[in-house]
C-alpha cells in the first residue's frame, strides 16, 4: 500500500468443468462476484468442459438445480469486462461463439454504450494471457 492506494493485482479465474454435476462452476462464480467488490483487475477463462458454463438455453428443471447461467450476464454490472473462451475447447465440443450467451457491459463513461466482454481466443494466446497474471485460481 502506497499513498493510501490499494495494490491492484491481475486475478484470473480459470473454469474447466461442466456447469452442473459438481459445485465448481457455481462456487467459482460466487467467488468472482465477491472478488469483484475489491476493485482488482479480473479476467475469467473458460476452457475444456468449462465452456459449457456459458452456453445459451440451459434448462435445469430435470436435475432440480438452480439455473445460474443467467448470472453470467450480470458480470458486466460487476465491472468484469474480460471473459476469455478458448477456441479449441469450443471446436472440440462442436460448439462456436454462437452457442454462447452474449456477455456485455455498459460503459458508464460512454453514455452507457453496450460493449462486448466475451472474447474467443486461441490456445496460444490464452497461454500468454494466463502468463501475465499475478494470481491464477483454477476451478
Amino acid at each position: 500500500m502506497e499513498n493510501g492506494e490499494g495494490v491492484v493485482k491481475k486475478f484470473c479465474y480459470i473454469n474447466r468443468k461442466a456447469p452442473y454435476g459438481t459445485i465448481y462452476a457455481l462456487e467459482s462464480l460466487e467467488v468472482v462476484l465477491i472478488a469483484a467488490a475489491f476493485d482488482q483487475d479480473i479476467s475469467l477463462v473458460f476452457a475444456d468442459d468449462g465452456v459449457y458454463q456459458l452456453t445459451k438455453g440451459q434448462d435445469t428443471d430435470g436435475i432440480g438445480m438452480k439455473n445460474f447461467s443467467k448470472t453470467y450476464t450480470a458480470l458486466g454490472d460487476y465491472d468484469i469486462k474480460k471473459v476469455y473462451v478458448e477456441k479449441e475447447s469450443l471446436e472440440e465440443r462442436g460448439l462456436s461463439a454462437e452457442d454462447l450467451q452474449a456477455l456485455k457491459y455498459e460503459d458508464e463513461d460512454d453514455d452507457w454504450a453496450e460493449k462486448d466482454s466475451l472474447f474467443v481466443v486461441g490456445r496460444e494466446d490464452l497461454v500468454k494471457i494466463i502468463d501475465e497474471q499475478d494470481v491464477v485460481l483454477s476451478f
Partner: protein
Amino acid sequence: MPLEVDGKTFETDEEGYLANLNDWQPELADAMAEADGAELGENHWEVINFLRSYYEEYQIAPAVRVLTKAIGKKLGKDKGNSKYLYELFPYGPAKQACKYAGLPKPTGCV
C-alpha cells in the same frame, strides 16, 4: 423465526430472510419493515421492485455497488447514490431492501 402475516406463517432464516422466494407477497415487506420500525413509501417500493426484477433476470441479488449504479441508470443520478439509498434503508440498501423483497442475502455481503 417464522413471520406471521394475515394469519399465515412464512419460514425465514436466522437473519430474517425469507426461506422460500416464491412465498413473497407485498404484505410481507410491510410486515418486515414494521418489525424494523420503518414504514415503506413509494421510494422504498421503487427499490424493492427493482431488486425483484433484477433477481428475476440474473438470479442474484446485486451487491450494493452494482445496485447503486443500476438504480442510477434506471431512476436517475439523484437516486443512484449511497446517500439516497442509505436514507431509505439505513441497515444497508442491498441487505435490507433484499430482505423486504424476499430475496436471499446478496452475494458478497458479510
